[in-house]
């Protein structure tokens, strides 16, 4: 199978190049990550992140034939040759398919991604109805792979100011949690021309999310709550 892979080693390359690989795969190589592991067994200088190989750790996000996705759950049979692999767009490249995700995590941290509740904790669990808990479905499953934020033009242009779809999904995860008491602070923090309102609902994030989540909907809900709060 044929691949064209983005290669860049800052120690020796003035600029990145696309390197061609033609590899004989085994029947057990079913996912893109299997092929990349095989390529690395031949050329050990190819660098990428990977861990769980089942789509839950979020390590191996990359741009696959022009679309962001996870290599470990992308079937080889579904890919057009040559398979063109690039690092996630919009973030600084450290080497090959490895990007510097500091900006992405900085935005995630900026929304205070932890439950805030100043009441003394009860002896047992805080109660939450199944309906209240259901509000968190489609939000808490995010794996922080950054496929969404790095497919978003607003994030490319303002990665320092726009929280981005992943961070906003997380913000809504806490806004929607019946146990969280900081809703007003969270909304105040987002009420800003950049942090929230740079989202123009073009839905690239929804299109690429490997977990099938919908950040655009979550962002819309935050905007709705903000409007309601004003009236």
């Amino acid at each position, binding site marked *: 199978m044929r691949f064209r892979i983005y290669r860049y080693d800052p120690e*020796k390359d003035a600029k990145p190049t696309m390197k061609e690989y033609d590899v004989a795969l085994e029947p057990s190589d079913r996912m893109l990550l299997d092929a990349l592991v095989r390529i690395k067994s031949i050329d050990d*200088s190819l660098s990428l992140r*990977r861990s*769980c190989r089942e789509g*839950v750790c979020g390590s191996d996000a990359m741009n696959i034939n022009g679309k962001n996705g996870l290599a470990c*759950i992308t079937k080889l049979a579904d890919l057009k040759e040559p398979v063109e692999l690039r690092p996630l767009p919009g973030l600084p490249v*450290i080497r090959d398919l490895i990007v510097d995700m500091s900006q992405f995590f900085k935005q995630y941290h900026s929304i205070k991604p932890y439950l805030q509740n100043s009441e003394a*904790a009860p*002896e047992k*669990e805080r109660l939450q109805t199944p309906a209240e808990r259901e509000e968190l479905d489609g939000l808490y499953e995010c794996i922080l792979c950054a496929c969404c934020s790095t497919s978003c033009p607003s994030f490319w242009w303002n990665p320092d100011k726009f929280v981005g779809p992943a961070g906003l999904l997380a913000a809504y995860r806490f806004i929607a949690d019946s146990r969280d008491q900081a809703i007003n602070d969270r909304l105040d923090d987002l009420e800003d021309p950049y942090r929230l309102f740079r989202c123009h609902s073009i839905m690239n994030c929804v299109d690429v999310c490997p977990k099938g989540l919908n950040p655009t909907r979550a962002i819309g809900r935050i905007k709705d709550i903000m409007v309601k709060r004003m009236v």
Partner: protein
Amino acid sequence: MTYPVRKFDAVVVGAGGAGMRAALQLAEAGLKVAVLSKVFPTRSHTVAAQGGIGASLGNMGDDSWLWHMYDTVKGSDYLGDQDAIEFMCRMAPQVVYELEHFGMPFDRNDNGTVYQRPFGGHSQNFGERPVQRSCCAADRTGHAMLHTLYQRNVRANTLFFVEWMALDLIRDASGQVLGVTAMEMETGEVWVFHARATLFATGGAGRIYSASTNAFINTGDGLGMAARAGVPLEDMEFWQFHPTGVAGAGVLITEGVRGEGGYLLNKDGERFMERYAPTMKDLASRDVVARAMATEIKEGRGCGKEADHILLKLDHLGMEVIEKRLPGIREIAKKFANVDPVKDPIPVVPTCHYQMGGIPTNYHGEVVVPVGGEPNTVVPGFYAAGECACASVHGANRLGTNSLTDLLVFGKASGDRVIQFLKENPGHKDLPADAGEYSRSRLARLDNQTGGESVHEVGAEMRRTMQAHCGVFRFPDMLTQGVDKIRQVAQRVERTEIKDKSRTFNTARIEALELENLIEVARSTMVSAEARRETRGAHDRADFHKRDDVNWLKHSLWYRDNDRLDYKPVKLKALTAETFEPKVRTY
């Protein structure tokens, strides 16, 4: 001194469930802590745990920590230390409530309490009937827990060193542990982390086998570092083969599927677990179910063209239950097995999943080794928690859900113990003059190696050897040959060569270093398994087909030097509960 030195009160190696729970204790106590992780914390392998956290909350009916303790002791095939097991089962509800307070999105009952599902080996009233004890967030419990712990650490301003790989333990002449050397993957720079206390939470090493549910990063780094520093590894012959890994792919399918009512079928469509475990059936403990499946396959009742797998049926649960309780499983089955479990059964085989053994500790998380006549002498400054540690709560076989319980309970307890140690031992002891030298020589060897073999090939040979010689069923001649073979592989590991010598994010170098850790785990496993002449829990010897409490009710201790083996007694005395005396184990 060859490397820059940075001083911390404590260094935690590993940022999975145990490492982050420990880090939280330390950070909230205001200590200067460095948490090192090879990956961004939420990418640690705890993220892949599915089914739940075992704790006797009693939300679904009567339950008690004593029943949980009985099930765990029985599940361990009586090799677990009963003081540690009592401690874990008593603490479990508290750490689960704390996790809920941190924001964990547990599933709920109508009355608002945490939903609990049945799980293998967990019972009411000392084995009478299955109990619902597993606290879960759909089938993504580990993911939800790991993210919650990370979030809580963000709140506590924990200092993470992300994508740093620890290389070696630093001990002084008295044996006290004074920190680690570690490499920043992005730059290739090495630092000495000089710490008053060092806590390993480096996880397991399931990557010693070809077929494994484990992530690529599960390379036993803590075990390798401990073994090279002269610390023995305990009970390494005991590896859990999870009954339901996706055939061919290895990816885990939670026991929660059977907890929710799914069951296993052989090629005749027979629900064969009824024959092997009349009471608990498909919810017998994992060693029992895995062995039953392997027996069915061995005796020609496997499914498929090659008669090489078993089918896990769950379509009868209906779309609603599957979508609500097992959505991740449906996703995995579709992707990795090409079946939609709403309609068709999932092909599964027993797959290496969990390491019961590890770095020997007591129930405070302090690392303990034999000194003189005392088998459990504390190594000052050294702690371990989670899968890399052997407390031992899992003994010869771990119950499902007890892994996450272990991470929370012993993560927290070891953190607390470190705090106490730091209070009693102010100030840093001096580093030995040659601190860092050992790591430097290992890195230099790797960089200067010529004419060596590829890491990939030697690693594959190790995994094949373990798979063929030390699997679900173990045969004396295969084990004897296995010891020879794995020693040969170990020699080859000393001569691996990487072509890429660059410094920036050189993952070839990382993989070579990981193999140096894996091989210690593989060797300890094979040597300990060859020596243990009985069948207990996950260790099934064809030539000694019974448990032998007269000769083998003891923990193995493997030392790296000359593959020396030692043994120490099992702690049968609990903290307050009466001892559960070993008896015949049926489900």
